[in-house]
């Protein structure tokens, strides 16, 4: 996909999102309420309308081939970049999904290990040590010092004695 194609696609998607926001704003009055000024939906509705107009403007410029982006025939994301960036993005999504199941202390070591070993190509010993030590520091700083309780999922019972010891 070229940058030029991506530009059009993005503008169309954002335009569609603007329309959704306008539709959703209609739940509250968008006009002038007597003695009250603008209604509760007016602010988001009319600003979403400006978003939509901006998207039309971007598309208009695209047809006129005005601007650097609208003329660029370069690849939007080169395949080797896509593999790397995509891998990171997918790893992040999986990690967040795992937070609710195996908890933050189950998911983070996996993420760190993946990043360090697979993407960073560091040595095993280093990767594993790092993946184990980082969550321990996080536990100390966030849960013990700051008393911010992070999600544990099914690993919760493992932490009960730790709570007893430190909190």
């Amino acid at each position, binding site marked *: 996909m070229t940058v030029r194609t991506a530009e059009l696609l993005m503008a169309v998607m954002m335009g569609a999102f603007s329309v959704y926001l306008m539709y959703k704003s209609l739940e509250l009055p968008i006009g002038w309420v007597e003695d009250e000024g603008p209604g509760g939906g007016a602010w988001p509705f009319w600003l979403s309308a400006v978003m939509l107009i901006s998207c039309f403007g971007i598309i208009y410029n695209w047809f006129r081939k005005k601007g650097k982006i609208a003329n660029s025939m370069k690849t939007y994301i080169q395949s080797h970049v896509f593999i790397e960036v995509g891998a990171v993005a997918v790893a992040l999504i999986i990690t967040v999904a795992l937070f609710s199941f195996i908890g933050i202390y189950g998911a983070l070591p996996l993420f760190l290990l993946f990043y360090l070993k697979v993407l960073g190509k560091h040595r095993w010993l280093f990767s594993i040590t790092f993946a*184990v030590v980082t969550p321990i520091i996080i536990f100390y700083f966030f849960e013990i010092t700051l008393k*911010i309780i992070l999600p544990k999922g099914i690993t919760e019972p493992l932490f009960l004695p730790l709570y007893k010891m430190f909190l």
Partner: protein
Amino acid sequence: MVKKITLLAIAGIMATVSAPSAIAGWTPVKPVEFVVMAGKGGGADKAVRLIQSIIAENEMAPVPFTPVNKAGGSGAEALVHVNGRSGNDHTIMFTLNSFYTTPLRQPKLGVDIADFTPIARMAEDTFLLWVHSDRKDINNMADFAKAAKAKGKDWIMAGTGKNSEDNLLTDFLNGAYGLQMKYVPYKGGGKVAKELAGKNADSTVNNPSEQLGFYEAGTTKALASFTDERLPLFPNAPTFKELGEDYVYYMQRTVVGAPGMSQEATEYYQGLFKDVFNSKKWQEYRTKKSLQGDLLQGDALMSYWMKERDVHEVMLKNMGAIK
């Protein structure tokens, strides 16, 4: 090497977990999530942080209580969150009157407050009618009605959010005294109090705790109170009952447990909050902020909720906020 140590550590932890607890009676085993139905810095939030510090200071509980503010949608977010924690013994919530009004106004939430576990009503906050001290012409309700009537629609009553408690009281005043005061919603009672002190509003119906600073400095004065009896802090402000209007209104400050909380946990929290209620600091706070309402627990609290919910349903219907 590292792996081995981790395995050993995990094994050790497992061993301690599986050992049966020898202590009699239920106690919380992990930090208790203390949901606040309002944002950081508001009246409810201040009370929660005071309770948190009373529990910590007197070492009343083996675990910390961590406040989590969920102010979204007039407390709708908090209600849905706690409702979803059904059967959880480590989630409690600090509520206000939006506990009744929000489920009534947003039936889509699917929250029935009768499902929640009653723990303890810690206090009832009171409301008074306030004006700026520079209004030398206003010294009682008759003066107030005269002045507000003269200004008609331009008399500004500042309050928190439309259809909130302040709005209910404003509607009552408009109806009872034939006024047309204009209601301007602001974010939070502290902001409302400041608008009066800065003369950007003509009157407010603040809680004493919100106006106390300005009152003590002589910037604002209270004309009448929405209580059964005169408040000791404001002996010169008559109740509306004395003035011939049968109208009282209070704001509950109550601790609620998640629906389906176990019997043992409920008893534990009821005992704990009884101790908090009787602590010197909480009693001092009650006196200072002119809070009313005795400790109410268990079934008595539940029947209080049901009564109040009916009262609010009628009020909201009269306002046209619900059908």
